[in-house]
């Protein structure tokens, strides 16, 4: 095999450590080869497991017992979009045990419980059948994970579930029990209430901040034409620019190969 660094000599893996060439060249070779190795290793890394939470363990506590122990939370839930559907007989709608385990365990006060909230909501809101049945957007969970909040929470849930994080989870904006459709004036994320939800964490935020819609990052044409166009420009532009660069480099390589095969420099 040819030695790229020292033409005329055979390639040797220990070349980087040899005393041939000057130090600067060896450092440069090492950097370039390390970069190539890093990219190759990164491409081989295994994907992470699915991000949606598993169903909580079945609880023996009845709805009546929940109502007795947590009357305020129960009343908020019963009036919510989930509670109304559940009490009307839609058993697929989340009841108390749909999100909580046994209340005696005190799990809601633990750090992993908080980090797990989006993945719990995602069990239904990322399920295509459930969202289609109820006429809900099917990208609610995915679009949350694309935000600063969602990406951070998902990272720590996967790597360090005991980490205390303050990035917003679903219940911080949509409330834990009093959940209503955003079009409902009672909803904490209704247009009139949204800024109030933001300033709980982002003190000093103004009305423009609430219009950033950063709770869910959507770039489709209907949701945000500007973001759609921006993303489209990059998705087309990057392959074009990098493709043109690669094409030029390829032409140069072919020219050099041809010149060597021809036995001389054509320039």
């Amino acid at each position, binding site marked *: 095999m040819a030695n790229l660094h020292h033409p005329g000599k055979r390639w040797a893996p220990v070349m980087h450590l040899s005393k041939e060439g000057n130090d600067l060249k060896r450092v440069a*070779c090492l950097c370039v080869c390390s*970069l190539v190795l890093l990219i190759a290793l*990164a491409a081989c890394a295994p994907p*992470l497991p699915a991000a949606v939470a598993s169903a909580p363990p079945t609880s023996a506590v009845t709805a009546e017992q929940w109502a007795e122990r947590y009357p305020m939370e129960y009343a908020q839930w019963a009036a919510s979009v989930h509670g109304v559907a559940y009490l009307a007989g839609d058993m697929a709608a989340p009841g108390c045990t749909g999100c909580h385990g046994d209340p005696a365990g005190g799990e809601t006060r633990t750090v992993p419980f908080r980090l797990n909230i989006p993945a719990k909501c995602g069990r239904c809101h990322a399920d295509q059948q459930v969202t289609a049945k109820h006429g809900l957007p099917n990208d609610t969970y995915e679009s949350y994970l694309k935000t*600063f909040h969602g990406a951070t929470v998902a990272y720590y849930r996967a790597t360090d579930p005991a980490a205390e994080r303050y990035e917003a989870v679903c219940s911080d904006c949509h409330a834990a029990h009093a959940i209503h459709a955003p079009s409902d004036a009672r909803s904490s994320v209704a247009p009139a209430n949204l800024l109030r939800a933001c300033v709980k964490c982002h*003190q000093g935020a103004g009305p423009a*901040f609430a219009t950033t819609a950063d709770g869910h990052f959507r770039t489709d044409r209907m949701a945000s034409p500007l973001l759609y166009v921006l*993303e489209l420009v990059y998705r087309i532009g*990057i392959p074009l620019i990098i493709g043109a660069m690669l094409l030029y480099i390829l032409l*140069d390589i072919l020219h050099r190969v041809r010149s060597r095969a021809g036995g001389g420099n054509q320039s």
Partner: protein
Amino acid sequence: MSKQGNTVVLRFAASQRIEHILLMVSFSMLCLTGLPQRYSSAGWAHAILGVFGGLQQARTVHHFFAVVLIAEALYHAVVVVCELILVRPRPTAMLPGVRDARDGLASVAFLLGLRTEKPRYDRYDFRQKVEYWSVIWGTVVMSITGLILLFPVYATRFLPGVLLPASKIVHSYEAVLAFLAIVTWHLYIAHFAEGVLPFDSSIFTGKTTLERMKEQHPLEYEQLVAKSTATEAGGADR
């Protein structure tokens, strides 16, 4: 190689070499701490973020090197403006022009075998200018969008809210573009292009040889020789 060909000439001043090192280190660290944030759900991104102690720590390192890059960029801007005002003749070698477009086309024609001679370059060839102006564009765009993302509450006091997600898209895609451009174009120019393999050390040592200048920047070489001849003739006349 002739004795004259081995003559060493200064190509980059010490301040320019320091600027390059600052740019190289800050850009590399920004890529290393930024790209895994873009792909934070991937296994390889977790591995890299883990090296820094986690996502939060990687963000802190990212912000530190962003400050280094912005400071370097501001210094460069001040130097360029001062030189354009104070130095005569004006140092305009890096300004792009019609000639660069012509050189680019001529270079492609040469590589395709449609021309027998390579285009003759001045101090900077069109490939180097593409890279320099890409860095300028990238630094300005990344600095503005990065500051908007870092201070969202403050930014939305003056700017429309939609600029926040727009900044996120631009910052994220521009980072990918910059990384790919460096991995392809810069590595090619600085490491694999004809005459520089395994790499062009002049940006680190500041020096190049007359032989190399004659080969890669013939117009600059001719100007240097003409200037040198004129100086010698002037000295002999006196």
